[in-house]
Each structure stands twice: as C-alpha cells, then as structure tokens.
C-alpha cells in the first residue's frame, strides 16, 4: 500500500469503531530537542495519525502557541534535516502514520528533488503545507506523488463550493477542514453554521474529512463527531507539553 493510503486507512479504521480519529500535532523538538522521539511515541501511542511540525520563523497561519513552540525549537537548532535524521535513526517509532507539517520555505531550502525520498526513508507518509495553495502546488505534489506520499489540502468556511470540490478531489490522505477563519489555537464554539459547512465538505469529499483549528475539548469533538472522520489537535496539545503534563492522557481525555 502506498504510504499515503496508510493515512486514510488509519482514519477510516478508527471511524469504523464509531469514534472520530485523532490527529495529533507536535512541534518537533519542543519543548526539548532530546525528547523528540520519546514525545512522538507517547503521542503516537494514542493518536491515529501524528503531524510532526517543522518549525519556521514566520508561521503566518499559526496563533501564539505554535509561534512560541516554533521559536523555542528553532532556538535549539531544530531543522528539517535534523528531524528526518532523527526519524530515520529512531529504533522505536509509533505505528500511527506520520505527516510532516511545514511552511514551504524550509522544504524549498531542503530541495524538492531529494525531499520525497528522504521523507519516505524516515517513515513519513505525507505533507501538510499551509502556505501552499493548490494552484502553486504542482511541483511538490508531483514529486511526492512519485514516492506515494500524500499532500493534504485545506478547505475553509469561506471556500466556494466549486473550489471545495477541486480541493477535496485533489487532496491526499484526508482533507483538512479548517473550523473557522483565523489562526490556530483559538477556542471554537462550533455554532450551527459550522456544522452545516462540515456537512457540505463531507458530501463532496472522496477522502476522510478532518477538522482542525481550535479543537481543545471532548465536548467539541463529540459535537463535530457526526460530521467528520477525524479531529486535529495542535495548539492544545502543545500547551500540554509546555506545562509538562502527559500528552497521552490529554489525548485519551478527548476520546473517552
């Protein structure tokens, strides 16, 4: 099975148990560079898919929490090269498929020519690139596709239906359905019109639909559950790590 299908399969398998899948985001090397693989395994033991964040100096789609964790990781010298080396070298890795979440510039600096092979070698199944809209993504998408890696697309509440169709059809692994306009990390009330939006995405999408931005509590996950295949938890999990609390326990609390 190509790596990208591992992602959709993991999400669907969980969905079949009656629960939405959990996709957990961590910033690589946060809070401590030394703890990266241990952290990854702790999170990956509970989550169905793990997003490994490549820190960037200018995370324009992210709120204050991920700005902070990115800066802390950069200050310790975390880079894409280091992340891929650590993953390649790691003796124990989670069974959950891994995604790299990175802004475009670190990927360009690494080199689009060698990125897919090195990422596949490190056990990565796909990529999320928040500042790469579909129209600009051909070069990266083709390169990843050749190695069976997914490139996840986003839809948002302001995406017109025609465009939504193009994005859901062009997305690999799952479609990242942003819960609201805005940056990551805020709390989302999940009003009625948001549910209607998820319903629209679900009807159009050939790939699993995962909701992200502002998901912090079991109540939110439950309210969204009938409309989605998975929930993406980022800033809230990073805050747990920041406090030194147990990430696995937090993730379980979203599910129980």
């Amino acid at each position, binding site marked *: 099975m190509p790596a990208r299908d591992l992602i959709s399969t993991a999400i669907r398998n969980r969905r079949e148990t009656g629960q939405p899948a959990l996709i957990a985001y961590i910033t690589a090397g946060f809070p401590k560079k030394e703890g990266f693989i241990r952290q990854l395994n702790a999170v990956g033991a509970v989550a169905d898919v793990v997003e490994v964040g490549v820190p960037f100096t200018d995370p324009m789609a992210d709120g204050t929490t991920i700005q902070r964790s990115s800066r802390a990781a*950069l200050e310790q010298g975390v880079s894409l090269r280091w992340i891929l080396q650590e993953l390649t070298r790691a003796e124990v890795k989670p069974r959950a498929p891994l995604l790299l979440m990175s802004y475009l510039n670190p990927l360009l600096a690494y080199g689009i020519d060698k990125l897919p092979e090195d990422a596949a070698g490190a056990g990565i199944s796909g990529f999320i690139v928040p500042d790469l809209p579909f129209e600009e993504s051909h070069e990266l998408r083709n390169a990843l596709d050749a190695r069976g890696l997914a490139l996840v697309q986003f839809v948002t509440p302001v995406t017109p239906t025609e465009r939504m169709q193009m994005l859901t059809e062009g997305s690999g692994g799952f479609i990242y359905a942003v819960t609201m306009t805005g940056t990551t990390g805020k709390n989302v009330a999940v009003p009625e019109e948001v549910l209607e939006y998820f319903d629209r995405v679900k009807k159009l999408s050939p790939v699993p639909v995962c909701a992200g931005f502002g998901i912090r509590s079991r109540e939110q996950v439950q309210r969204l559950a009938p409309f989605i295949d998975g929930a993406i938890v980022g800033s809230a999990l990073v805050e747990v790590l920041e406090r030194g609390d147990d990430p696995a326990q937090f993730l379980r609390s979203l599910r129980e």
Partner: protein
Amino acid sequence: MKHSLSKSEQQALIANVQQDAYPDERGRFGPFGGRYIPETLVPALDRLQVGVDRYLRDPDFLREFHDELHNWVGRATPLTFARTLSEKWGAEIWLKREDLAHTGAHKINNSIGQVLLAKKLGAKRVIAETGAGQHGVASAAACARLGMPCTVYMGSVDMERQAPNVGRMKLLGATVVPVTSGDKTLRAAVDEALRDWVSDPNGTYYCLGSAIGPHPYPYIVRELQSVIGREARVQILERTGKLPDLVVACVGGGSNAIGMFHPFVKDKDVQMLGLEAGGSGSGLGQNAASIAYGTPGVLQGCFSLLLQDENGQIQETHSVSAGLDYPGVGPEHALLASIDRVKYEAVNDDDALAALAECCAAEGILPAIESSHALAGAKRYALANPGKRILIALSGRGDKDMPTLQRTLLKDVL
C-alpha cells in the same frame, strides 16, 4: 521555481520586460512572484483580483484617484535641481521630491489608491503594517479622508525608533497595535497583519505598503506608485530636454523604487540603480540587502530573494533605517536584477547617515534615512562616472528619524 537562468531564458525574460508582460496571469514576474498564502485567504485574493481588473484601469476610478493625488496629496511633486550637490559630486543631480507629498513620503500614493479600492470592494475596515511608520501614517490619513476604520500593526522595536509617527497615526484616528512576536520589526508586522486578515477575510481589506506579498499586491503597488516615475520623466524632459543617464532609488521591499523605475524600463539608454540597506556589514544579520546577499525562497506570499539560512529560516536583519529593515524584496526587483536591467548595490549605515547630513547642509533638505541610501549610492556612482545626469527618488522626509539621528549624527553635537 529554478533561479539559475540560461542565456535564452534570460533573453526571453528581457523581451517580456520590454513588452510590459509582467505580471503574467499567474502573478509571476518571470520566475518570481506568485501567491503563497493560506487557503482561507484565497477567496479574498480572488476578489481583490476581480477588483483590480475592474477598477485599476477604469477611467472613473482613475479620475477619482488622480483628483485625490492632486488636491489632497499635493501632486505633482517638484523636481529639484540640486545645485550644490551637483557641484560637489561632479554631476547633474535632480531630486524627485516625494518628501513633499502629503504625510511626508511616497507611501501616500499607494495608500490613497488602495483605500479607494477597499471602498469600492465594500470592505468594512482597513488594516496595514508599517516599518518606519510612513505607510502606517499614510494609511491612517487615507482612511480618515475616506471614512474607513484603520488598524496598523507595527513592530515594538520600530514603535520606539519611529515614535513621532505612532502619535501621528493615533491622531489620524488609527488603532496602532504593537507587535512583540518575531523580530518585532516590519516582517513581524506583516505576519501579524496577515493573521488579522485570515481572521476576517470577507470584511477586512489589507492595505499592503510595499511591492511585496502575494499577487496581485506587487502589481497594485507598482501601478499606484508609478506616478512617481511618470511625473519625473516628464519633468526632467521639460527641464533638460533629455532623459537621465541614471535613475536611483532606495530599495527595502521596493515600492518607491518600482514606482520610479517602471516608467523608465523601456528607455534602453537609461541605467538604473537600486540601493539596499547594507547595515553594518555583509554577514547574515548585519544588513537588509536581499538582492546583494539573498537567495531565492518564499516569504509572506511570494517567491523572491530572501535573507535566509541554509535551512530556509528567515534571518533577522539590521539597518539604521526601519523602512528598509526587511529580509525580502519585491518580486519585480528580483526579476529586474536577474536580467541586469537594474543594478542593485548595498549602502551601509554610516554612508547613508553621511549622505543625509550632506544633503541637509548642501540643499536645505532633510531626507529620510531610507532615501539617504539612494543619495549615498548616487554619490558613489557620480564620483566614479563624472558628468552624468542623475535622477534620484527622494522618497521621504527625515523628520520622523529625529530619535535615531539624536542617537547617531547628533550624538556628539548636543
């Protein structure tokens, strides 16, 4: 996305530039430009594009725009023959006086145009970023003039070094939001403005101040700022009967420079020189000269030349001038540099400050520190190439720089 060009590719780019073919329909200036933004902003940029296509060349819109430029901004700005500098530098020095435009810099040309556009597009509020504070002041003034609420994002470091402008923005009715994330200067202010815009893409108009960012901003800013070069070209022909040998402007993001250069691009005998902030040296972090020392990459919506490390992380910059303190440059400048149509060089802090002092004493004009980079570059060229006719974009006045000048030039005087 490759950037090393073959001879034939370069010839094709040159031909396209001569035919004014950029940006193309994908928002590209040759290999540079494009639209690298979160999905949430795609519909907003699509709407902006529709607005640009509908209004920017529309006679009614242009009539309204030029009426504001003439009766409110005070255009055309004068072209001043700099008698004493000409004598000292062995050249014919002409200054295009954007310092005499309303609010004290060229930024107002773009702000009044974009806020007019925002009204046409039905926006409820305008946001802007600012470095030196000039674009913030211009946007605040344009919003007051046209009755739009205005929020300006400004790095906390810049708020300190350009304190007089913070007060001006507040008087003009704008809300000034200090940005304490990232490098606390212009780049962080752009990031924060983008985050605001992502939160309300339908009701908010982002009035970007430089020729940077996602398409169509570099195009909008060029179109609105080209009034500088168009006026200057007519004025110098009227006064001398000839075109200049060299046109000079300072380049941070590059808005006054593209406005000055663009109307001269097709004049094959006119050479052009852009001056970047050379700061205190050529090392990473010591300057803000993205063309001189940068490499290709994507920052804040476009593919251009950036100051970055080998991992693609954007570097913090240094310049004595807040308005040039930016680690990237507009995509059209990256193109003009790649085909050698414009030469770009760096001017360091000390030379810029010395040129500022020289202009004050010789011509009775206090230029902005940004503009003083252009003066210093022109001087260097004039001394090496005697007898040339040089047209300099004096992009703004230096009153806002008094806190910095007190700490530098005036340190030993007072």
